[in-house]
């Protein structure tokens, strides 16, 4: 067995486990939790293209989730267009909005950028809450849109069981991870990292940093919007306060930072840790001690940031390398 094959093997095992999981997890509850976990891993991986590689901190990605969710829902409710098609229309639309947001904000640094993206996303949410009709399109203001669970099947992106949703989001996650991996090894990936770390040096090396970031933003907002469609089809009800809430934007950023932003595994690791913390603490304490689950969530955030400020990906990767090294006597490729 060659070392590179050996290093790839755990990935294969992981993929097999993920695909086989519904066989073991028959409870729809846990499947539901897993679906949301993967959904957040997907969202965070999409976010990571900008927030991780490009080295800025966008805190408004919920706007893209909302745009995706609304586009496909409006198209399917009012024009009978399959959500699968609406999904990509939403993606393109969201991409456009992403670029418009990116044009002025990427000139800003640090805190300004974070605050500007919050304001953008909140502004878009407030707009949606104020608009009942946009031309012929029914947005329905704060009341949102409900998707009647009438037609099930792959074409309608609606299923009675959890398994199809599970596989859809799993495939989406796998695809976005593969894409991220490819980008991180591409010219764009190098350019994003360079522009994020040392913009002046990057520019002198032929990199139009703003362009690279815009490209990343376009992709990131496109991908995020796809998850919006998934969200809408999964919960069957959307309104601005749910699909565009600041909580989503924040949670995505938290997952990335806890997992380790700028790495490929980081978002997945972050979701693996934070989602169960949030779900299970709510399940066990939500009724008896209201709010305690959010306190636990806050404590976990603080502890990880204090003891692993670069996220959990770093120590875990070290551990993994060491374990692999023991197993196959390979020191692994340095990063």
């Amino acid at each position, binding site marked *: 067995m060659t070392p590179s094959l050996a290093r790839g093997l755990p990935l294969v095992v992981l993929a097999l486990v993920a695909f086989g999981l519904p066989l073991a997890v028959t409870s729809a*509850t846990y499947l*539901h939790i897993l679906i949301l976990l993967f959904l957040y891993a997907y969202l965070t991986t999409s976010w990571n293209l900008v927030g991780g590689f490009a080295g800025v901190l966008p805190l408004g990605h919920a706007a893209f989730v909302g745009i995706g969710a609304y586009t496909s829902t409006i198209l399917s409710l009012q024009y009978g267009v399959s959500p699968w098609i609406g999904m990509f229309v939403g993606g393109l639309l969201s991409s456009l909005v992403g670029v418009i947001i990116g044009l002025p904000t990427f000139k800003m640094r640090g805190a300004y950028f974070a605050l500007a993206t919050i304001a953008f996303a909140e502004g878009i949410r407030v707009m949606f809450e104020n608009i009942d009709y946009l031309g012929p399109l029914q947005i329905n203001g704060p*009341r949102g849109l409900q998707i009647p669970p009438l037609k099930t099947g792959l074409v309608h992106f609606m299923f009675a069981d959890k398994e199809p949703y599970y596989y859809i989001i799993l495939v989406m996650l796998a695809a976005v991870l593969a894409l991220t991996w490819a980008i991180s090894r591409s010219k764009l990936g190098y350019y994003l990292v360079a522009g994020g770390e040392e913009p002046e040096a990057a520019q002198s090396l032929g990199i139009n940093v703003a362009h690279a970031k815009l490209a990343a933003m376009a992709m990131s907002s496109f991908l995020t919007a796809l998850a919006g469609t998934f969200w809408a089809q999964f*919960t069957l*009800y959307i309104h601005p*306060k*749910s699909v565009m809430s600041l909580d989503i934007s924040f949670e995505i950023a938290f997952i990335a930072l806890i997992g380790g932003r700028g790495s490929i595994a980081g978002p997945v690791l972050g979701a693996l840790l934070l989602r169960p913390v949030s779900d299970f603490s709510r*399940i066990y304490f939500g009724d*008896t001690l209201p*709010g305690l689950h959010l306190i636990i969530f806050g404590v976990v955030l603080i502890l990880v940031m204090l003891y692993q400020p670069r996220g959990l990906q770093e120590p875990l990767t070290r551990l993994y390398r060491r374990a692999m090294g023991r197993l196959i006597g390979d020191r692994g490729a340095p990063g």
Partner: protein
Amino acid sequence: MQSNRQLICIMITAALVIAGAHAALAQTTIKVGNILPLSGPSASVGLQNKQAQDMAIQEINDAGGIKALGGAKIQMLYADSESKPEKGVAEAERFINTEKVNILTGAWNSAVSYPVSAVAERYGIPFLVPVSVADKITEQGFKYVFRIAAKDSWWTRDQFAFLKDMEKEFNTKIATVAFVYENGDWGKGFAEGWKKLAQQGGYKVVLDEPYPSTATDLSPVVQKIKRANPDVLFLTSNAADAILLTNTMAEYKVKPKAIIASGGGHADPSFMKATGKNARYLFDIVEWETDVNKPGADKTNEKFKKLYGYNLAGESVDAYVAMYVLADALERAKSTDPKAIRDALAATKLTTGPAMIVGYDAIEFDASGQNKHAALVMIQINDIGKGMERITVWPKVSRRANYKPVFPTP
């Protein structure tokens, strides 16, 4: 800090209770999954609903549980939705699949009740909704959704019927109305109803103003009301904004001939305390009031007040009553099978028992699952010698004896 130590005690106890709860429960329990906003912006109402239902379940179990099922006890499981649809759905899924509940109840926020009703329908688990008022909830063609409270088109209908009656009774002509409401699912629904009714009733709408219920300053809105100078002001508000609006209106001396509120924030127990005399003469529409002329009502309220320190309000009564409707259905279903419970619920005709503290005489569901007798009362907040209280004034048959409503506002 004392409360800190208390907190730790509570936490330890809670952990033990949770650990024990799973093991200790015998087979003969009926599990009810209850989804409520227990944290986040609507935590206040969530808690009121929870406490009312806790009391009802306690009573039912103490009285021997469900006799048709050999004295089976009802076990209530609570989940926190944080007012978020996706969390509500996740909890509904968990209740049904993992906790194997026999019935679902909740979820207060219409935004959470919609998607939860779809989940319940899909699994064929009855979903008994005490208070989400949006019309749509029982108009989806679902078989497993039942609602105790009146739907919002009934609320607005009764508000205008009340206004007409008052005009006649006090010989006062009302020409102009203003609508001010929170910019959400609930407020928008009410405003839509109002607009239609105002047109039918021949009233002139001088102001139609949604406002964000997260607003930190409502004096601009109050100014606007002042300038529009309506005869009657209709309000739909959550608690924080209801308090803010009422106090600010008093400051700016805005006094329309009548203010008609729509429950919710105006019926929140905090409201009376936090507005004091500023809320005097305000009319509010509610499902129930403490002075309702029904046997047992004041005893139930006293018990509740002793337990939790505040009066029962309309929403909590719906929540309370829902548990007795459930118990009644279980007695008749003689089974814990969700389908049987659903059929029993559909055949409900409850006319006796503790549930009959409601202002009307029977609970029956129509084909859509809506409680067709659900009726509303109008109350007026006034001080008649014992501090500010909520006094039922309409319909006239329910009016508190010897009370003459103050209309128009002096």
